[in-house]
């Protein structure tokens, strides 16, 4: 690999854009293929599939081994509420290779010092999510316990293709939440996407344990183990 190729590859990855590094394994010659590049016709299908399945693999092309190394942007976790659980959750997301983003309109909470190096958006969640545009590689967890903040976050998340939507709260508060969301016009199918109470049931009690249970559920959803 050439040093210049590596520098461009890292630049693209820092911009959170998808890219494939293609290498002929017999001589090491390599090049980059962006998501919007038009690859030559023989490879187009394999390249689209590699991006979509997020799966690197070696192909035989004209009898030669060609390795497609996929670098999709990292999966994102939008954490609504700069609360205590969010501090651990942001760290666990990072550990798992997931990009955390914290959204909270309340100045007193959205204190960057509590979240070193984590992207923080001080805004109402509907505005923040309009900006973040959750896609099928985005998870959203609403953690404030405050319907004025959590509800608009959930409504925006459920209108997006986010692969995971979770909301903190007891069964009882979740039932009340579903009634409010129904009043807002969300149907049962959409609301069934909400993981509430949030997180895998590991008997979590402390903020750290709750963060771990949420993180486990997000990973399970990403890996297709929970719907």
């Amino acid at each position, binding site marked *: *690999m050439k040093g210049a190729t590596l520098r461009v590859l*890292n630049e693209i990855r820092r911009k959170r854009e998808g890219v494939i590094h293609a290498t002929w394994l017999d001589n090491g010659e390599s090049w980059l293929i962006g998501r919007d590049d038009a690859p030559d016709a023989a490879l187009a299908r394999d390249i689209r599939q590699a991006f979509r399945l997020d799966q690197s693999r070696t192909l035989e092309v004209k009898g030669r081994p060609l390795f497609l190394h996929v670098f999709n942007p990292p999966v994102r976790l939008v954490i609504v509420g700069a609360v205590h659980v969010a501090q651990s959750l942001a760290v666990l997301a990072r*550990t798992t290779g997931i990009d955390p983003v914290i959204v909270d309109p309340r100045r007193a909470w959205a204190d960057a010092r509590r979240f070193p190096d984590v992207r923080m958006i001080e805004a109402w969640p509907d505005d923040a999510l309009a900006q973040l545009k959750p896609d099928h590689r985005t998870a959203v967890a609403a953690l404030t316990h405050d319907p004025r903040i959590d509800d608009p976050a959930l409504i925006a998340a459920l209108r997006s293709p986010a692969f995971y939507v979770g909301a903190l709260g007891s069964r009882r508060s979740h039932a009340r939440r579903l009634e409010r969301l129904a009043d807002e016009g969300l149907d049962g199918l959409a609301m069934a996407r909400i993981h509430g109470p949030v997180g895998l049931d590991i008997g979590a009690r402390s903020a750290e344990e709750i963060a771990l249970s949420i993180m486990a559920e997000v990973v399970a959803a990403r890996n297709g183990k929970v719907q």
Partner: protein
Amino acid sequence: MAESGLMEDILETAEAWSGDGHQVALATVTRTWGSSPRPVGSQLVVRQDGSFRGSVSGGCIEAAVVAGAREAMADGKVRTLEFTVSNERAWEVGLTCGGTVQVFIAPLK
């Protein structure tokens, strides 16, 4: 995945080491057969002095991969190594159930 303090970014490390004037090689898992501990695309970055970051297995083929990477830096050529492990030895080298893993090594130029 860049700039994560907890999950080290192999390609950022490669660029940084190279920028510091080190010779660097990258090892990448390009194929696996059977069960293998690290997926295709996993990477290891190696420096001429033998320092490395990342992983291409559960830990026990790393020594051979680092040796291969230092040879690649010395002769400037790419190489492909294959490791197959019998069930009896699989546990020792961290490849479960007789997996095979192919590792491509390329010096950074």
